[in-house]
């Protein structure tokens, strides 16, 4: 029983990391109606920026803040320079472009920072809690993820900009007719997503250690989690991410064939989706013909 609880909590902790990257994915999907497959690599790159700052003796929270700002601006820039030119192109073209971004970021990181695995400091001390069920670091990660969720939720629900962003994503032409600068909304969406991603990366790095391939697996699970929860819903993203984390852990521990962990985890997720094709909290948009 103790082991089960331990695995669940450990799963929640890794799930929180998936959840935070999933939040970034949902952010961009809500803002621009596409999945940014490069979210993980962008997060990784942001983490390297933070690492550079920390190595230059900048205190951790200062480095984090600067990284957030740089990531936000970087995200906006990428939307403007890389994504905007193909905004009217077929969906597949944007998918390929985000895949191209994955390769570019990964390769650049490897070139600039090398592929050597690095240490990364965590702001949370690593002390056991609740009789070794989890650590303070796990709790910290979960807390940060939930805080981001709350902020994002409030942003979309209660602010004018949040509503404008949702409108711009759904119907850019009508949004313009309401005076909304659609281009700027897209940029803000990407900027926020990049900042969220940076946070996710900084939380991952102490655990998985910093190297250019750090976020690859995380992205896949985050993608699954976001869809499981409902790609349009931030709450769904977090719940989905947590569920994926716990499932992955339990499957890995109790399933005899550990090489099939990924397969089984995905099979379970898809099973759920068969019954809820828009995710657990996703809503289908009613379309009158």
């Amino acid at each position, binding site marked *: 029983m103790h082991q089960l609880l331990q695995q669940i909590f450990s799963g929640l902790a890794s799930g929180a990391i998936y959840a935070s990257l999933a939040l970034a994915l949902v952010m961009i999907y809500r803002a621009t109606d596409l999945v940014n497959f490069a979210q993980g690599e962008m997060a990784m790159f942001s983490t390297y920026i933070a690492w550079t700052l920390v190595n230059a003796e900048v205190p951790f929270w200062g480095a984090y803040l600067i990284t957030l700002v740089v990531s936000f601006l970087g995200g906006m820039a990428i939307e403007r320079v890389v994504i905007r030119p193909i905004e009217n192109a077929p969906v597949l073209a944007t998918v390929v472009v985000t895949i191209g971004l994955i390769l570019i970021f990964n390769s650049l990181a490897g070139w600039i920072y090398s592929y050597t695995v690095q240490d990364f400091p965590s702001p949370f001390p690593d002390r056991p809690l609740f009789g070794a069920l989890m650590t303070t670091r796990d709790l910290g990660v979960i807390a940060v993820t939930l805080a981001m969720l709350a902020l994002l939720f409030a942003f979309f629900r209660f602010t*004018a900009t949040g*509503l*404008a962003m*949702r*409108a711009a994503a*759904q*119907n850019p*032409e*009508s*949004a*313009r*007719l*309401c*005076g*909304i*600068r*659609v281009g700027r909304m897209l940029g803000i969406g990407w900027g926020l997503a990049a900042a969220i991603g940076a946070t996710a990366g900084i939380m991952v790095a102490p655990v998985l250690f910093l190297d250019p391939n750090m976020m690859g697996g995380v992205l896949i699970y985050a993608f699954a989690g976001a869809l499981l929860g409902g790609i349009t819903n931030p709450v769904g993203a977090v719940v989905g991410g947590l569920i994926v984390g716990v499932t992955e852990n339990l499957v890995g521990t109790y399933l005899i064939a550990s090489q099939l962990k990924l397969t089984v985890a995905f099979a379970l997720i898809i099973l759920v989706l068969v019954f809820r094709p828009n995710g657990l909290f996703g809503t289908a*948009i*009613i*379309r*009158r013909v």
Partner: protein
Amino acid sequence: MAPILELRSVKAFYGPSEVVHGIDVAVEEGGMTVLLGANGAGKTTTLRAICGMVRREGEIIFAGERLDRRTTEDIAGLGVAHVPEGRGTFIGLTVEENLRLGGYTRGARPHESMQRMYGYFPILAARRRQQAGALSGGEQQMLAIARALMMAPRLLVLDEPSFGLAPRIVEDIFTIIERIRREERVSVLLVEQNASLALELADHAYLIETGCIVTSGSAKALADDPQIRRSYLGY
């Protein structure tokens, strides 16, 4: 009275094709002007040209400002509220959210304006939390108009509000439009295929055919004109 909106030699393009060939239109301040014409005559394109949604040439002057060089968002911010063909409702958002979006350019306090809109369109109040996509055609049209009014516009541009609606609903909507024009003191530019109803309410009318203005004058004059009666009013 000076016109609030003037088009001078305005051309409009769909891609490479010129579909509106140098027209002149004026909308009197506080009045209702209607642009009549058959399907494909260029009415919608003209409206889209005013709001910068298609490529255009010529002068478009609104309350002293040149619109022909501005983006759609800017034009909306200047006080032109366009209810597009097909209504352009945000079907994934609730009725209330749609209205709030209308008030986006007007700053932080939409509550009073929203109450006024619910006054004009009580059915929207009843459905305020529902997804806009679940509303009927007539209700969506009302929502679209209400959203445009939330912008506190000086000019309301309506593209075929009667499209796809039952005659009873069309009458209701037109009654409300006329009431709005009086109470909100807003000028209205209306595009319609339903000529008889439009001519009853409007002050001025233009008839457009294959991208050119062929007739213009007071609405009454056009309604009495025998040729127009034969071609567009059916008697």
